[in-house]
């Protein structure tokens, strides 16, 4: 069983940030493995727990993203391909998916896993773009993943319930962080990761991105609210009075 996993390095969204002249400035420079991709790596490791196989990581990103490759190798993936782009490369989901697909076409795999979105932009486009480029059957937003004979069975969280999908291989599945809790690399895993093969290939986008961020803005300000303490009945009465007469949302 060969599993390919696409991973991405993203800024730590829990770190403080601010906007300066319309540009985004992170107060720390901390970059992390996208949490949804960590779930994809974990899902691959779980699939191989009682099975022969290998996990090949694919990452598109600048030089510093190699830290993120090491992290996922330390979790237990076997090898990686780093599609290296310049630090200032202008990429959107469309160009990223094209570059990744071009590389993936040169490899064989049974399952291609991705995070369902990246936690910085929350766009959630690259996974299904890859599936289309590679003409793969796919399922998105998976919260469960198992193998049954030759079929991949993915449980995806749909709009009204969970859809249990059976997919022929090769296929693509995008993973929700509700699927699992990604393991923390062990010291042994970290030591071993340093000896695992990472192939670096320089790539250049062959077009300018069709989507671009023109600038960042703060959220519209909310009018500061009120906070009440007191006896439950008094609190309930006060709230209902305000919802009814002031906010006019009860009718």
């Amino acid at each position, binding site marked *: 069983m060969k599993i390919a996993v696409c991973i991405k390095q993203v800024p730590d969204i829990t770190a403080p940030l601010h906007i300066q002249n319309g540009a*985004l400035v992170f107060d720390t420079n901390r970059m992390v493995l996208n949490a949804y991709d960590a779930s994809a790596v974990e899902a691959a490791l779980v699939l191989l727990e009682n099975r022969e196989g290998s996990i090949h990581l694919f990452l598109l990103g600048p030089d510093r993203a190699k830290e993120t490759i090491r992290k996922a190798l330390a979790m237990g993936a076997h090898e990686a391909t780093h599609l290296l782009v310049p630090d200032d490369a202008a990429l959107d989901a469309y160009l990223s998916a094209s570059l990744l697909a071009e590389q993936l076409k040169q490899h064989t795999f049974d399952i291609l896993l991705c995070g369902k979105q990246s936690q910085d932009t929350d766009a959630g486009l690259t996974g299904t773009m890859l599936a289309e480029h590679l003409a793969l059957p796919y399922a998105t937003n998976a919260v469960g993943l198992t193998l049954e004979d030759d079929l991949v069975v993915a449980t995806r969280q749909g709009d009204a319930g969970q859809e*249990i*999908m059976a997919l022929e291989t090769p296929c693509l599945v995008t993973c929700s962080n509700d699927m699992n809790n990604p393991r923390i690399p062990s010291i042994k895993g970290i030591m071993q990761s340093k000896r695992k093969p990472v192939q670096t290939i320089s790539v250049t986008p062959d077009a300018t991105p069709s989507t671009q961020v023109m600038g960042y803005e703060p959220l519209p300000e*909310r009018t500061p609210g009120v*906070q009440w303490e007191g006896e439950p009945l008094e609190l309930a009465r006060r709230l209902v009075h305000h919802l009814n007469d002031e906010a006019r949302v009860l009718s």
Partner: protein
Amino acid sequence: MSKILTYLAVQDGKIKRASLEVLSHCRALAQEHGWTVESVLLHPDARSLATTAQQYGAETVYYMDHPQLQAHLNAPFLAALHAVITHANPHVVAFASSEAVKDMLGALAVRTQAAVLSDVASFHIIAGGVEAKRPVMASKLIARTQAQGARVLVSVRAGAYTAEEAPTEAALVPLPFTFDVDTLKQQVREVVQDALGTLDLSETQVVVAAGRGVKDEAGKALVTQLADTLGAAIGASRAVVESGLFPASAQVGQTGKVVSPDLYIAVGISGAIQHVAGMQNSRVIVAINKDGDAPIFNYATYGLVGDLYAVLPPLINEIKQVLPTTPE
């Protein structure tokens, strides 16, 4: 003349309200720019549903009513949308964001060679494309984003616009569904419906959401009773979905659904940024929490510091007394 095409998603036998909101916005954009506004329906009952599309101002309604389009599966819906877009040749295609749309949008952009913007809070037409505001970084801020190209796909968060009736004499145009189901390499074995009421979170004007403070079935019963009293959908934070008390389809937040109802009542929710990302655009936010320092109070219009188990019973009573008629 340029065209804007709106995809009208169907759920529980009706066009989703969120889709009608997007259609209303598209109609306004079309008027502003002298474009035509068209829509597409993919459902076995598409022909009868098309009257609703006419009510909301679509000038042409393309439809396919093949039985295969009853329930969501990405490959046939992608093929159908690709065929409609190829036929209608719109400059902009607009969707209400949902898990079904997220399941197709990137692939559809590649197949139709379109630029794409997903999950936007608002959008308008600019020379050569679309400009949108997208919440990013766990919705801590807004990215003003442009898509340039002969074709742009855009999906819009629920509640961004208001659905307004504007009846038209729309032409109904049936299109053939030519997808060969024998080529399918995936199938849906089963859909496990969540047992938590039938109200769709993104479709209602009131949401009652439960967090970690709701510890047991008794707490869940209070939350359900409050929701029933208000005719509200039930939401949940990740914590109570993980604990198994609430189903995953109720999850509101960066990972779950993004909602912006008129009234959002956060019961026992502390207000982690991942949750706030999914509800902060609600018009009125009520927070009920024991901990007066919980971050949810920073977003609350009305904050009640108190134990939900003590506050909800009198609250449900008081609401019943002011509501003209209690919804079933």
